């Protein structure tokens, strides 16, 4: 079961490592579901490149296509894989180490 979870988190982090895909995900998070055309109007990325990225993101399960207006497919963020990545980040964000150093300094005074 763990490899699945790791694979899910890895998909999220790989997607976020690419500036174009990161800005697409950020736009979907900020503004909600959108078509490739919508995103092309808001981002400095060509519509063709956006369509390609959305296809990859859909294959990875990070966005899901759904029917939009005027027969255009629009894409919605999937929260489930983001939550798995968030679990990973929640563990990283505990930051014991820096504080334990500060704690030792405090105790040694």
């Amino acid at each position, binding site marked *: *079961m*763990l490899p699945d*979870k*790791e694979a899910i*988190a*890895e998909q999220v982090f790989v997607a976020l490592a690419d500036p174009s895909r990161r800005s697409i995900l950020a736009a979907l*998070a900020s503004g909600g579901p959108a078509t490739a055309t919508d995103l092309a109007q808001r981002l400095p990325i060509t519509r063709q490149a956006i369509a390609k990225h959305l296809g990859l993101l859909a294959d990875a399960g990070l966005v899901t296509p759904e029917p939009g207006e005027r027969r255009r497919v629009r894409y919605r963020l*999937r*929260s*489930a894989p*983001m*939550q*798995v990545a*968030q*679990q*990973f*980040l*929640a*563990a*990283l*964000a*505990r*930051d*014991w*180490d*820096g*504080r*334990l150093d*500060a*704690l030792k300094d*405090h*105790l040694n005074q």
Partner: protein
Amino acid sequence: MAFPDRIERSVEIEHPPAKVWSALTTAEGLGSWFGNQATIDLRPGGLAQMTWTEGHKADMRIERVEEPNVFGFTWHIYGLPDDDPRRTYVEFTLEPVGAGTRLTVTETGFAQLPQDAHEKAFEGNTNGWASELGELVDYLNAA
């Protein structure tokens, strides 16, 4: 890539276990070094809550109470929706070392499988455990 399921840290504190225990398990203690205010029903299955003046809160369900050595509870994972069933288990272990205490905290369950998929913007407490442990020591030193 490895998923970080478990966190473990230890710290030596120059105060006896009974005093550390009190700081961990009373409303007065928890409300001083951990939250800004706390309530606690100290028994397995009992509930505790900490609130912070900035407005957030943490609800804990107490699992282990073995005074003055083991105190365990579960709570919500930061960043997940409030009604998400995923919870991590936190356990404090107190061992006497000379006149002081070795305090170990473990937190497990970050890698558990999701049960569902709710929508949520991410918010986190990046100070988290680190600052709580520092504040615990400050609280004990002031008492």
